[in-house]
């Protein structure tokens, strides 16, 4: 796991990340503290990128992807940071060396294979329940039953958010491109089950084009300045795979620092991956503890307390009066629970968040860096001394500050080699076509 923090104010954006990487294999897992998670996205312009989650995208290390993109980007620049982010995500919208067609097809095969196998399992379980409930089903009704069950899943999945990179026509194109593969998968997974091929193609299109991510995905955070950005911005994405030369991704954060717009803020602290310590620091309470407290209080007020009152009135009220009073007390309990929640949020904001953000807005660049490093360090330290948690956050902390005038500045950066022995590396850093 990872702890990453981005802190933005009008001066700059500071990025900090730990170095832990977890290698899982059949024998268990090992943790190394040598991973690089912060990179420059451009060698010439003030834009940085952090990654977390899976270290690879479809088997290709993010470091390689970023450095190949950076090499191609060269000295080109964009007006706004969001344009850098879009350009990076569109980097794969063509034939490319990183993700050849065969690799993308293999991914589709495995991904759809997994989703279809899950669907088959669900269909099988529902039919098992139906047989138990009715005692038997006949073969004539099987196609209709199967269709109805699958339709239910299709309609449920259709409610998921659509991926920006997969508009309807792109999804149709993917399904058409891989039609033969899909038919083969359907035959293999569903064997002799009478399925509606058109409905199944629709299902495949949905799991490709909607926000449905299996476990594996990576977080990508892009921060800095475009040419016309006076203040920094940050965009974060969850990325899963390249399908038909399109990235399956969703935007998870968009923060702009500014002076006027209501969508812009004075300053912001944004944690990624392991976020709980930053949340505790910012809000004065652990998010899990807060959520449990809220749930418990709600249960007490909506169910527990009304039950106690009604028990004490047993025998004194008719059934109708009891039910009416229960409904009223539950409603009151809901209102009180909501009020507690609102008050709690307001108090946390006033007492903890606002004082920090007010100071943060005026912090100089070096203090931003120190704060970002401290917050990552806090997460790492907490995990190190907590028995129930593994040291999946740790190692040296890389810290960078990006400002409009100075560009991307490393405050702390580990190297896996001795720079004194590798003068050529630094000398060639801006060399034409270099991937460093």
């Amino acid at each position, binding site marked *: *796991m*990872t702890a990453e923090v981005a802190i933005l104010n009008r001066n700059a954006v500071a990025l900090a990340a730990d170095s*832990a*990487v*977890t*290698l*899982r*294999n059949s024998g268990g897992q090992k943790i190394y503290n040598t*991973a690089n*998670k912060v990179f420059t996205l451009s060698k010439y312009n003030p834009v940085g990128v952090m*990654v*977390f*989650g*899976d*270290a*690879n*995208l*479809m*088997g290709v290390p993010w470091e390689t992807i970023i450095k190949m993109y950076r090499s191609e980007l060269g000295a080109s620049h964009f007006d706004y940071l969001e344009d850098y982010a879009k350009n990076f995500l569109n980097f794969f919208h063509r034939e490319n060396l990183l993700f050849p067609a065969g690799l993308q097809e293999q*991914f589709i095969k*495995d*991904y759809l*294979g*997994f989703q279809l*196998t*899950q669907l*088959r*399992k669900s269909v*099988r379980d529902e*039919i*098992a329940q139906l*047989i138990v409930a009715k*005692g*038997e*089903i*006949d*073969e*004539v009704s*099987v196609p209709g039953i199967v269709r109805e069950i699958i339709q239910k899943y299709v309609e449920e999945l259709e409610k998921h958010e659509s991926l920006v990179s997969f508009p309807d026509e792109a999804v149709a194109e993917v399904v058409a491109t891989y039609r033969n593969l899909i038919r083969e998968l359907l035959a*293999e997974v569903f*064997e*002799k*089950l*009478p399925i509606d091929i058109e409905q199944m193609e629709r299902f495949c299109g949905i799991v490709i084009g909607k926000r449905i991510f*299996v*476990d*594996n995905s*990576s977080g990508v955070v892009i921060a800095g300045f475009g040419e016309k950005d006076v203040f920094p911005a940050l965009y974060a994405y969850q990325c899963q*795979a390249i399908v038909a030369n399109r990235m399956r991704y969703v935007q998870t954060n968009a923060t702009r620092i500014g002076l006027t717009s209501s969508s812009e803020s004075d300053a912001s602290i944004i944690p990624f*991956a392991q976020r709980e310590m930053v949340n505790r620091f910012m809000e004065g309470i652990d998010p899990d503890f807060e959520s449990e407290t809220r749930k418990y209080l709600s249960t007490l007020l909506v169910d527990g307390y009304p039950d106690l009152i009604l028990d004490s009135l047993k025998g004194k009220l008719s059934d109708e009066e009891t039910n009416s009073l229960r409904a009223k007390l539950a409603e009151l309990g809901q209102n009180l629970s909501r009020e507690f929640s609102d008050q709690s949020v307001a108090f946390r904001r006033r007492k903890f968040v606002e004082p920090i953000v007010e100071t943060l807005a005026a912090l100089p660049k070096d203090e931003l860096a120190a704060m970002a490093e401290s917050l990552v360090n806090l997460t790492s330290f907490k995990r190190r001394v907590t028995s129930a948690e593994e040291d999946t956050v740790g190692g040296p902390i890389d810290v960078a500050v990006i400002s409009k005038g100075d560009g991307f500045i490393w405050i702390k950066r580990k190297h896996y080699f001795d720079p004194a022995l590798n003068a050529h590396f630094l000398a060639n850093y801006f060399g034409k076509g270099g991937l460093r």
Partner: protein
Amino acid sequence: MTSEQSVKMYRSIEEFEEAFFPASFHPQPERVAERDEDSFGEELALRSLDKFGALLRL
């Protein structure tokens, strides 16, 4: 033969699976090996997804 007799009834999920998922219901040893090659089935598909990156996590 009456029409009632000709309609197959399934009274257990095992009967249903045997009829509609015969390959999974009666897996052949060579078939299992073939699936292993193909990285298929729920567990195999997950393992296959793993090879696309879940093994190394930041």
